């Protein structure tokens, strides 16, 4: 390594050590904001994953009459309905779910909630045609055409159920992002302040550097590097925190909720580079801004 890089790196570490309390504060603040940022990114991932899975599976349920609300569907009517559904060009796939199938799906979904399962029997849940559409937005075409069919009790857009869930998670995600952004700005201000203090503490030295003709970036680089190192450490810590917690939590949830896919280590790994980029980026920008006026020629 040449003398010039030795200098820059040595000075950056001297700055971090000399100002240990501030350094710790900066690292903590970056950690908190990036952990929030990472958590909201991972929540987005989770929502996307669940949404994809869900929309891929079913979009429209056509519940069939069983004498309770309307006269039970006859096998001719049911056959006609299936034929017409399959002939409809917006329909991609049609599955028949019998009462027995519906009961089994319900019991496996709520396997650990005995009271729920005890409250129903094999006859409670209606049979249905579950329909996947070429384009999930074409629900109205199906509703208009088939709701008047004899033996059809109700047509439900499953995406509506999903949409309610999405609206909720969107609120959570947006809130987390906003808090993360505010935290990140606060971290940036703290970094800027720390760098300014560091530059002030070494104004004698930088004054001499300027006078003997050190270039501007050479005078600034140790300070910027000092900020970036703190940002990098904060990012790494937050990555570690997410790594240690998120797969555990998701794994636990996955055991309770079998029907939904959950994010795991792969997604936490993938979010890491973004955290590092955000941590070092915000640190670099705030350090440079902090030095802009202070160390001018």
């Amino acid at each position: 390594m040449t003398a010039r890089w030795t200098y820059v790196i040595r000075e950056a570490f001297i700055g971090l050590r000399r100002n240990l309390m501030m350094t710790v504060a900066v690292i903590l603040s970056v950690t908190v904001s990036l952990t929030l940022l990472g958590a909201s990114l991972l929540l987005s991932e989770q929502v996307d994953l669940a949404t994809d899975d869900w929309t891929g599976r079913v979009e429209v349920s056509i519940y069939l009459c069983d004498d309770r609300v309307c006269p039970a569907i006859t096998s001719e009517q049911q056959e006609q309905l299936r034929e017409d559904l399959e002939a409809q060009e917006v329909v991609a796939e049609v599955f028949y779910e019998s009462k027995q199938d519906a009961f089994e799906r319900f019991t496996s979904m709520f396997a650990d909630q005995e009271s729920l399962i005890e409250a129903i029997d094999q006859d409670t849940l209606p049979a249905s045609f579950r329909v996947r559409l070429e384009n999930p937005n074409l629900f109205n075409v199906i509703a208009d055409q088939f709701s008047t069919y004899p033996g059809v009790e109700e047509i439900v857009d499953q995406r509506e159920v999903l949409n309610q869930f999405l609206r909720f998670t969107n609120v959570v995600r947006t809130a987390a992002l906003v808090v993360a952004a505010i935290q990140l700005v606060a971290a940036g201000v703290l970094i800027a302040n720390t760098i300014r203090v560091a530059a002030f503490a070494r104004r004698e030295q930088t004054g001499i550097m300027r006078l003997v003709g050190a270039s501007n970036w050479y005078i600034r680089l140790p300070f910027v590097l000092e900020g970036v190192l703190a940002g990098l450490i904060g990012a790494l810590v937050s990555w570690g925190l997410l790594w240690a917690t998120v797969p555990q939590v998701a794994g636990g949830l996955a055991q309770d909720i079998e029907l939904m896919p959950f994010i795991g280590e792969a997604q936490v790994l993938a979010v890491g580079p973004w955290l590092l980029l955000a941590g070092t980026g915000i640190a670099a920008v705030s350090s440079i801004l902090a030095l802009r006026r202070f160390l001018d020629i």
Partner: protein
Amino acid sequence: MIKLQNVTKTYKRGADDEVIALADVTVDVAKGEFVFVVGPSGSGKSTFMKLLTREQLPDDGEIYVAGKNLATLRPWKVPVLRREIGYVFQDFKLLANKTVYENVAFALEVIGRPRREIEKRVPEVLDLVGLTDKANAHPHELSGGQQQRVSVARAFVNNPRILLCDEPTGNLDPSTSVGVMKLLDRINRTGATVVMATHDQHIVDSMRRRVIELESGHVVRDQSRGVYGYGG
């Protein structure tokens, strides 16, 4: 080497209060000259020096240093200009946490000179200023005169073409001052142009070099082989 043409420099003090630090100054210093800038406190000596390193920009007039027009010099070229200039202060401005050797090496380190050159050049300069045996001492372990010699070594280590000294003997007693002046004289003999601002009548009178006298920012005298004052 140094040329000022009708240079005026004012400082703002408050909204509409201005101090004229230099007024219509025209000076030409040739390569290899030794020049004293004298005058009472507040007459503009330090301002004169600061204009040469482009720490300050003039309000009016043109300045050329080492062939460069400072008015049109791009900001990123300023460090290149300063590498041609060594600067010595009245208060030494040594870094307390560095040894003598490190203080001198610092000036080369921060302009990116290779380590081999630093290891060769620093001992040479310490030898020139007579502080080889103090290389590992810290500034607070040195006398004022020794500290000022370190500061001269740092200014000269990069072989600048110009050495600017702002009252280098201001904090030193007369006998110590003589040592520093001998050093500056020796550096001047190597071909460097030396400009020295001073109050020290005795030094100016004994050296018999060119004297530029300032008064309230005006050049009131420019005399080769001069003395401190007409009365002196």
